């Protein structure tokens, strides 16, 4: 029997429920289903669906749950490696990190909710990703957040940015999970459509892994945690007015409010439940609520489920089955308790002052059946809900204007308008380059007492207590590069993530990804999506970093204008020994500064162009995956052999900004810098181009020869470019026909002062 066809001969009839609207073609369209899809549903059902059933199908077959327009391409991503324990398809991916431990990790987007209500949108995004990780049996040990906003000169954008940051912070801080990194970019391309992606890492003993499946016929389904309200019902696909006449807008809020305190209790209770052995499966009620968690758990086990919605604890009176099934209230779990162990579940939940209610059971008949006080209101085959969703492959064509931008002649921009030092300080103070301290000083980074490298470095590092190991993690994506050349841009995102991990002393191990795009029904967007997936697949193969999961967020558009395609890469790596953890900033006066890799004139897509000319144009820098591999092997070897004092990857703002970051460190006691660059390039290119494959390292002078030899052995160009100066000296970088010279106070002020100064000006929630 294939998904989509039910073998049952008798089709269970479900009488329409009093008060439910009649199924009309408008209602079907309002549910975001095409005529073809609706016909398919009728065929699967063997009859016309009831209102409740239609709601269930529409949620499960939405882009969000069904991956209609992405599934086929996502299958091209590499997902396997000996260390992968759980690939895509579960709440989170899981890898083996040795010593009996496994690491669960996943990234998730909350873009649309954050655009409406930044604080709650971001907060609930963090809540959701934490649940995805702890429902695997892992204790969350780190959070990262990847953010994009419009330019900060708008008061509304500052409001969104400020709200998102405090939302991310307050939620994670309250639950007690350290934030160890992330990224943020500001560009008019994200005006009106902020990107809020949150990533979580969790640690568990390998044997504690539990999957989300409704196994064991006769086992009891239990709703655990917060009560169900009318939050975010069918946010994406349904206009509230049509639901019923008396439902006014105010009774049907789209905004979900996060409750991190309840989440913390739920986290402790869930881990206790899992180790108690009284349950066989557990899943977060995330998007599409009880419906998707029950259907997915049934699907994975090949079983059916029966749920009585009258037994679900609700927050508001008179909720219909439709509303209860599709509510997206936060901090709720669906748990499958082993028959006879329900009492144990109650006992644990009571200890944590949480509610648990028996709402149904696992059945053998493969049906997704819903009762309301004993009366059937929905009865449908379970498997087609998850596996029967039609998937599409579309035609993708590049937009002409992007090609024109890419091919724009940038020669004139290589000649600096005025003073190079001035341009440099401007670049360093650009919110895209400047210190992000304003953000992560609002995040608890040290709770759980295992953070070895806090945000601000190339990657965050968490040591694993009781072992010699540590885990490094990073998120990366330069949306401008992806916009100008999606395939190249996606490869750069993977390469940069890997480079960041290596600079911290880690071996890149696996990725999770969050694909943020516009409307995939548009050919040029689908083109971006396809090319980005292909680029990501190639790079992941080259770095042997399989994809263990991820998330797709389409329709990030306002007034028909899409965001830059932004496939965020969340990468994790293993540090074999905590003594390998390597800082990014200079450590000692008199050390040599060595550049690995080559400077080029590839100014395309660089921050310098945006800051000086407001331009996003040109060919993004070329990325040579073989060179990247060699470079990364070389740096890892140097770190492991203790040749280096620091290593920092070159990215936004180019070599000059990288050197400034190395010199400034955490700002407490910056070092001077004396660097001479003899590249036969215009100084703007040498200093500010964002060419790939470069890492700046520092080492004791007596190690320099060795470092350069090691690089050469790996086939990586390397040369000494200068020395680390004293605390009283200046920042001095000379290129062939131009130079940067500035005192450390100005350097400090530009880099650390920029974001606080901007965020001290008023914000406004008004559009």
């Amino acid at each position, binding site marked *: 029997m294939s998904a989509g066809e039910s073998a049952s001969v008798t089709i269970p009839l479900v009488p329409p429920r009093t008060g439910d609207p009649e199924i009309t073609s408008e209602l079907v369209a309002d549910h975001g289903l095409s005529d073809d899809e609706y016909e398919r549903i009728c065929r699967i059902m063997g009859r016309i669906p009831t209102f409740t059933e239609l709601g269930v199908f529409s949620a499960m077959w939405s882009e969000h749950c069904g991956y209609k327009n992405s599934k086929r391409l996502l299958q091209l991503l590499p997902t396997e490696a000996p260390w992968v324990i759980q690939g895509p398809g579960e709440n989170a991916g899981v890898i083996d990190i040795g010593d009996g431990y496994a690491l669960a990790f996943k990234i998730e987007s909350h873009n649309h909710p954050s655009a409406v209500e930044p604080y709650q949108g971001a907060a609930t995004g963090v809540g959701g990703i934490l649940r995805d990780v702890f429902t695997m049996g892992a204790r969350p040990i780190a959070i990262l957040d990847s953010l994009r906003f419009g330019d900060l000169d708008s008061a509304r954008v500052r409001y969104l940015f400020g709200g998102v940051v*405090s939302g991310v*912070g*307050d939620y994670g*801080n*309250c*639950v*007690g999970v350290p934030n160890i990194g992330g990224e943020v970019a500001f560009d008019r391309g994200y005006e009106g459509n902020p990107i809020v992606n949150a990533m979580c890492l969790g640690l568990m003993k390998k044997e504690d892994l539990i999957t989300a499946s409704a196994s064991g016929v006769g086992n009891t389904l239990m709703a655990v945690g917060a009560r169900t309200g009318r939050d975010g019902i069918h946010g994406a696909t349904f206009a509230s007015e049509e639901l019923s006449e008396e439902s006014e807008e105010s009774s049907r809020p789209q905004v979900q409010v996060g*409750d*991190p*305190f*309840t989440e*913390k*209790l739920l986290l402790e209770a869930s881990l206790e439940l899992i180790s108690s052995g009284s349950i066989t499966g557990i899943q977060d009620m995330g998007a599409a609520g009880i419906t998707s968690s029950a259907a997915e758990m049934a699907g994975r086990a090949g079983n059916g489920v029966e749920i009585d919605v009258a037994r679900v604890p609700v927050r508001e009176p008179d909720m219909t089955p439709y509303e209860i099934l599709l509510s997206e209230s936060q901090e709720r779990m669906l748990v499958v308790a082993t028959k006879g162990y329900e009492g144990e579940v109650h006992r644990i939940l009571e200890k*944590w*002052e949480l509610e648990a209610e028996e709402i149904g059971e696992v059945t053998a008949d493969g049906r997704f059946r819903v009762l309301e006080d004993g009366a059937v209101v929905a009865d449908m085959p379970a498997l087609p809900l998850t596996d029967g969703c039609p998937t599409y492959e579309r035609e993708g064509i590049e937009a002409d204007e992007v090609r024109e931008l890419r091919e724009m002649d940038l020669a004139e921009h290589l000649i600096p308008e005025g003073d190079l030092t001035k341009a440099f300080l401007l670049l360093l103070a650009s919110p895209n380059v400047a210190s992000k301290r304003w953000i*992560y*000083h*609002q*995040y*608890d*980074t*040290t*709770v*759980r*007492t*295992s*953070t*070895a490298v806090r945000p601000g470095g190339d990657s965050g590092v968490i*040591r694993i207590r009781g072992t010699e190991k540590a885990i490094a993690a990073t998120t990366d994506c330069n949306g401008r590069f992806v916009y100008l050349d999606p395939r190249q841009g996606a490869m750069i995102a993977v390469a940069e993530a890997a480079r960041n991990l290596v600079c911290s002393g880690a071996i890149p191990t696996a990725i999770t990804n969050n694909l943020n795009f516009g409307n995939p029904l548009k050919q040029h967007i689908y083109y971006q999506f396809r090319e980005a997936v292909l680029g990501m697949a190639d790079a992941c193969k080259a770095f042997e970093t399989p994809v263990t999961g991820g998330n797709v967020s389409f329709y990030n558009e306002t007034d028909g204008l899409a965001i830059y395609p932004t496939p965020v890469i969340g990468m994790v790596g293993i540090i074999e020994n*905590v003594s390998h*953890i390597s800082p990014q900033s200079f450590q000692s006066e008199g050390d040599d500064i060595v550049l690995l890799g080559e400077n080029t004139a590839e100014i395309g897509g660089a921050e310098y162009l945006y800051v000086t000319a407001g331009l996003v144009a040109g060919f993004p820098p070329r990325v040579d995956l073989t060179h990247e591999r060699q470079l990364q092997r070389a740096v890892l070897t140097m770190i492991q052999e203790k040749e280096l004092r620091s290593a920092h990857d070159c990215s936004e703002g180019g070599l000059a900004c990288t050197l400034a970051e190395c010199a400034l460190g955490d700002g*407490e006691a910056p070092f001077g810098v004396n660097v001479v660059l003899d590249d036969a390039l215009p100084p703007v290119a040498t200093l500010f181009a964002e060419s790939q494959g470069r890492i700046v390292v520092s080492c004791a002078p007596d190690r320099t020869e060795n470092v350069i030899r090691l690089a050469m052995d790996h086939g990586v160009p390397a040369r000494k470019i200068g020395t680390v100066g004293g605390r009283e000296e200046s920042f001095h970088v000379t290129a062939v026909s131009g130079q940067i010279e500035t005192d450390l106070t100005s350097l400090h002020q530009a880099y650390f002062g920029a974001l606080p100064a901007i965020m001290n000006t008023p914000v406004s929630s008004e559009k």
Partner: protein
Amino acid sequence: MRVGVVTFPGSNCDYDLYKAAQQIGAKVEFIWHRQKNLDGYDALMLPGGFSYGDYLRAGAIARISPVMEDIIGFAENGGPVLGICNGFQILCEAGLLPGSLVRNASLRFESKDIHVLVEQTDTPFTSEYQKGQILRMPIAHGEGNYEADDQLLEELEAEGRVVFRYVSSDGELSEEANPNGSKNSIAGLSNKSGNVLGMMPHPERAMEEILGSIDGVGVFLSLATNLSTVVL
């Protein structure tokens, strides 16, 4: 030496505190907030976190937990009690320490390394430090702005009950070095008899080189030293 770490719903530094106390050789146990009877403990610690989400005021709801009655009794009998961050807030709400902790002046959560000056070494938690020593450790809180009226402040200063004060890395008092706007830059405070200490910074997060500082060790070492002389 038997140390109890009290877990309230929403505590999230209980495990960190447990590990820190264990590191200096204490026998540590978690105490659930509903537990009555705290016989047999030599010291009690109230951890950081967000008890009851800090939803009303930080520490306000935890203060009515069943365990608090016994903690108050323990403190009144001279037992050493340490409250860190949320623990400090709970001690203030419970009246074991005077004053209160309100929203940071910046209105933002503040998470970073700060410096404090050790001003009192005659408490069971600071005897291993030197007067005038400068310690570096993390803070991470949204409501650590110590608030008291002038009369109380005068009293606290006169009685030498300010145990830690926020300073710059070279020991200067300044507005920039005060991360939350606390009156008189107060970072840590004791009760009249000195056996109850509340502090906003996290010594339990400054126990190992890999975490960036070992300046917090003294707090736990002091306790161990004091208890071993008392008990033996």
